[in-house]
């Protein structure tokens, strides 16, 4: 998946006011990111990449790059 599509799809899933994401964005610091957002990220990873993660795995995630590394960097292209 192209990184810019990943950022766009993730934002759409999270329905946050933020309009721009990149690898350095701190997901948990985004306004409106809450416990339901974690579930949205789990659903997103399952739907887009077929990867099932637990909330505990996602607890360790801080930045968008951390999330991409959990999914697997081989899934992404510039």
């Amino acid at each position, binding site marked *: 998946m192209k990184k810019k599509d990943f950022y766009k799809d993730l934002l759409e899933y999270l329905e946050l006011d933020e309009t721009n994401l990149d690898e350095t964005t701190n997901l948990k610091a985004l306004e409106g990111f809450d416990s339901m957002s974690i*579930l949205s990220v789990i*659903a997103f990873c399952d739907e887009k990449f077929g990867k099932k993660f637990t909330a505990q795995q996602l607890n360790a995630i801080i930045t968008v790059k951390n999330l991409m590394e959990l999914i697997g960097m081989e899934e992404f292209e510039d």
Partner: protein
Amino acid sequence: MKTLSNKNIVITGASSGIGREIAIEASHLGASVILIARKKEGLQATYERLKAGDHIVFSSDITNYMELEPLITKAVQKTGKISGFVHAAGIEMTMPFRNMKPDYYEKIFGINVIAGLELARIISKKNYLDESGGSFVFISSVMGKFGKEGKVAYCASKAALTSSIKAMALELSQKKIRCNAILPGVVKTSMVENMFASLPDSSVEEIIKQHPLGLGLPEDIAHIAVFLLSDKAKWITGSEIVIDGGYSAG
């Protein structure tokens, strides 16, 4: 004589959790049980814990609706007519409403609601139903009455199940069939363990705290289910019985 002697009881979701516990308890009370679930290994594990008797195991996906009547026909040929049915099969889904899709609702309603109603309809036919009537028990949930974030589909499915037993109770009373729903709070089952794994720790702690007596055990539900299946409950129909460790008291 034991309270469920001479009763043949169909139980869905019998490979684990509440369905398994009801099957075990019913067999110890003299029933012959007809177990249905998808997972063969789980069904076998349940079967091994039953008190010896004329029990049958069917590994089947209950959302293959066309296969249900042949399955019931086979069960009746082997053990005789049916006097009890428990729909304990169910799936859970924790998903923010914003991320829900139509096929998620279809999947959860297929298992939690439609398969149960379809089996009840089939079993209520005179070819399959015991002449003395029957008792149908549906394992619903308190979440069919109280909302919970991330559980729109699950709550909707359980509310549908709880409502349907009332209409069913009225229609089927002529056939001497009683229909009741049990509404458990959160019970420690493998389904709940999987759900907890998908939730943040803070949400899990909150759920546990909402049960003043702690989380339930499958046998807490099984005790009531076997009572409803027995003739001791002969004047109970159309009822929703809440067993939730105090979840709904607050």
